[in-house]
């Protein structure tokens, strides 16, 4: 039990059971003071449960939760001093914006003058200063979420929990709010943020580190660059960004796939071992080049800036995201794809439990 100065969150073998089945399985994870940690995973992966364990809304069956070096496992939510923002905003409908923001300060019996000053400050910080006298129902979704963030920030928490905070907003607003959250973090550098999301873009954009969760367990944890450029498991590869995952056999100086030898950095993998080769679709090129693969064009999707080609290579589906083609090849045509050796990552047999044939999106 090392005591940390400053803040941060530490999960110590936290297990949560619900109706006899485990929704969070022995989570060990540390969020450093001032760090933004994204909990990324599909629904039912246990990421929200982990966040609720920090807030105090679920009681772990085993393990301890530490906030700022203090064991809070047995504390009720109102004594934890944690800010929380949820997808549904959860503003108090009968209170004006300013009273919503002041709620936490009044609950702490903060002196009146200070309450007013800090309420105004929090509203300024989120750009909602002009709306203090409005009721929540008079605001748009994005504005309501800003008020919810101001309300959580007004109590000056050391830890801010965000549970899918942007999921109820439309795409344009979402990217604006992402930039806003990043700015908030620059202005409040000592506040740790635990950000639950199923959206890889949000995680990649905002997080200092990403914890990838699946089926109640922590699968991987690292910086966005580490997880994106050199994923350690197939699940990480396919969930953090898109990925072509090709079953290969390691050979001397490369791998063999569908009867062809490909030049890739093999690392320490022993020749003859089965492994998975991860190639990002946007790093695949059309036409001959290094590591050329031949296949049949099965599908073409035009996405405006890019064309997504689905090509069947030796019985495997391979995706290529190409800069918009003037003249995409006809369906059923024989096409050549290639990728640079350095753009491929060999994933060992460690992560193969994620299974072959998953949808690579």
């Amino acid at each position, binding site marked *: 039990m090392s005591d940390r100065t400053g803040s941060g969150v530490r999960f110590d073998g936290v297990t949560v059971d619900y109706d006899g089945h485990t929704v969070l399985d022995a989570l060990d994870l540390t969020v450093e003071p001032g760090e933004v940690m994204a909990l990324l995973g599909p629904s039912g992966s246990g990421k929200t449960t982990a966040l609720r364990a920090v*807030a*105090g*809304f679920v009681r772990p069956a085993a393990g301890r939760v530490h906030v700022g070096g203090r064991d809070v496992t047995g504390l*009720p*939510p*109102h*004594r*934890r*001093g*944690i*800010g*929380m923002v*949820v997808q*549904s905003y*959860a*503003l*108090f409908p*009968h*209170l004006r914006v300013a009273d919503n923001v002041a*709620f*936490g300060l009044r*609950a*702490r019996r903060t002196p009146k003058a200070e309450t007013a000053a800090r309420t105004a400050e929090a509203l300024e910080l989120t750009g909602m200063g002009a709306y203090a006298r409005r009721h929540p129902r008079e605001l748009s979704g994005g504005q309501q979420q800003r008020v*919810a963030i101001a*309300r*959580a920030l007004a*109590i000056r928490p050391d830890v801010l*929990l965000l549970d899918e905070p942007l999921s109820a907003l439309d795409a344009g607003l979402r990217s604006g709010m992402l930039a806003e959250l990043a700015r908030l973090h620059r202005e409040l550098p000592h506040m740790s943020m635990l950000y639950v999301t199923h959206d890889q873009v949000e995680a990649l954009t905002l997080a200092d580190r990403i914890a990838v969760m699946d089926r109640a367990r922590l699968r991987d944890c690292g910086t966005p660059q580490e997880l994106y450029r050199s994923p350690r498991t197939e699940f990480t590869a396919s969930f953090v960004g898109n990925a072509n995952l090709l079953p290969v056999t390691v050979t001397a100086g490369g791998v063999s796939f569908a009867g062809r030898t490909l030049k890739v950095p093999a690392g320490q993998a022993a020749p003859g071992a089965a492994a998975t080769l991860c190639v990002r679709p946007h790093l695949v090129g059309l036409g001959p080049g290094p590591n050329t693969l031949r296949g049949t064009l099965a599908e073409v999707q035009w996405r405006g800036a890019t064309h997504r080609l689905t090509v069947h290579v030796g019985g495997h589906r391979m995706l290529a995201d190409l800069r918009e083609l003037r003249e995409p090849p006809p369906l059923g045509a024989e096409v050549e794809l290639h990728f640079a050796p350095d753009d491929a990552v060999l994933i060992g047999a460690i992560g193969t439990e994620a299974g072959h044939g998953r949808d690579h999106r």
Partner: protein
Amino acid sequence: MAATTADLVRARPRTAPARLWALPPVAVLALVFLYPLALVVRESLTPGAYARVLGSHAFQDALGTTVWLAAGATVGCLVLGFVLALILAFVPFPGSRAVARFIDVFLSFPSFLVTLALLFVYGTVGIANGLWTGATGDGDGPFDFLTTPWGVLLAEITYFTPFVVRPLLAAFSQVDTAQLEAASSLGAKPARVVRQVIWPEALPALAAGGSLVLVMSLNEFGIVLFTGAKGVTTLPTLVYGKAILESDYPAACVVAVVNIALSTGLYALYRGVSRRAGAHR
């Protein structure tokens, strides 16, 4: 095919025959309700009846008893109902759903059943007094309040509380759990959460349930007759006494008219309140 027929019927313009369909309900209403009501009002207009009745102590006492019993029952039901609904909705305990469902059934019980039950518990030969006399050997037990206004009040609160609990449970099911969680993560203790988050959401339901109880307890007859038979007279039992026991029909009608005016006034208030509550959602 059925839908087409229905559409045809609906599409038919509203003509005179359609308006004729309004006649039977209006006729029935007039025959069984409006005409007797008019008779009651006419009977009450017998010369001198109003002055005689409104000036009598019996009437003034009954009016006072009626109003304070109704007000007391309403306040009691609101307090008890709010606490019960709060526990049922927000404190998960095994069987809370069964209890909530039982409240629905309770609404369909006749009012004298409660009175009978209270008689068995607190009556002169009831369980409570039986235990006392058994334990102390005294001739009489200490519980002798059933025939007083307090006994009527207890019975009315017992019987009418579910009428407050029901709308409150509906209102509480609309309260967003995320709001309660947000409040407590902001540092609010349970009492503050109830006061500042749950209470404002409950107000429309409390107003609606409270006005309903007020009107119903104002007109309650069975409970008063059963429980307070000896000492307690309210407007409805006064009507009964004047008409059936004394055959003083003009006086009975005057009391009835006052009672009707009181409850229609309150009903108008109740409608106003519940409409505002409905508009609030």
